[in-house]
């Protein structure tokens, strides 16, 4: 079973020029995001999802092949979790938008 990831409650994301500023009440820090990271949070706003599910959603937006985005998405979780924006949830293959 693949791990699922969920967006933390209470985070605020606002556009700042070409980037996005996110505040996490968990870390108490403000974090700058690029479009890719902000897009992942938007996907998770629709519900918890696995890496594969997030990649599939974003592939629909970009026209990429989902498999090509898988490693990029997988590589971002640690940073987003450390930033207090995302949490890893219990293993559940059925979650997702």
């Amino acid at each position, binding site marked *: 079973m693949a791990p699922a990831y969920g967006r933390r409650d209470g985070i605020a994301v606002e556009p700042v020029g070409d980037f996005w500023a996110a505040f996490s009440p968990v870390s108490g820090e403000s974090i700058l995001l690029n479009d890719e990271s902000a897009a992942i949070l938007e996907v998770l706003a629709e519900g918890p999802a696995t890496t594969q599910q997030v990649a599939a959603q974003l592939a629909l937006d970009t026209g990429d092949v989902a498999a090509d985005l898988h490693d990029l998405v997988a590589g*971002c979780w640690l940073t987003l979790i450390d930033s207090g924006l995302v949490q890893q949830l219990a293993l559940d293959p059925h979650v997702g938008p």
Partner: protein
Amino acid sequence: MQSSSPEQQAGRDKRTARRRLIRGAFGAPVALTVFSGSAVAGTVNCLANPPTTPLTQNIAPASDSDVFLRVQMRSKGNGSSNSTWVWGDDLLNAAGLVGKPGYSFLNTDRWYCVSAGTGGSDAGANQTGYTAGTTYASTAAMLTINNVTPALLPGSYIAVRVDPTTGTIVGVTNMANASALTRSCWSSFVKTI
């Protein structure tokens, strides 16, 4: 014309970042903590120029069981060619090992020299006379002169390989080469064996 409800507005805004994604050019997701001053400029550069594919740092581990810790770097100097350091206490916090015995490096307030400076040996200078890759006690001269210790480098992190049985640092990758981003930007790395 009717004004839209907050729910309708939220619905329109919800996919804004996804709409901004460039078709066929999904880059690496980047999230960096905002610091004040010049670090902000560096952060923006990191965000604006992410790699399009994850880059891996080639590290030659002694074994599969090596432990890697991401720790914030420290530096000391007067602006150019500063010396850079890893502090044992920072490692201790990163590893969640505060108060736990058995980690010789982490428990003894030691300093690991990542790179030596070139600007002199007075309190505010870059601290020559130290060798990169060597561990020094907190009683070393550079740590005692005027009580000026290396300060945290905002946004600069380093991968430190630690022997899990002794707690000693057995390797440091400063990401100077084949870096995912620059040393001041990277937030993760992939171990290749």
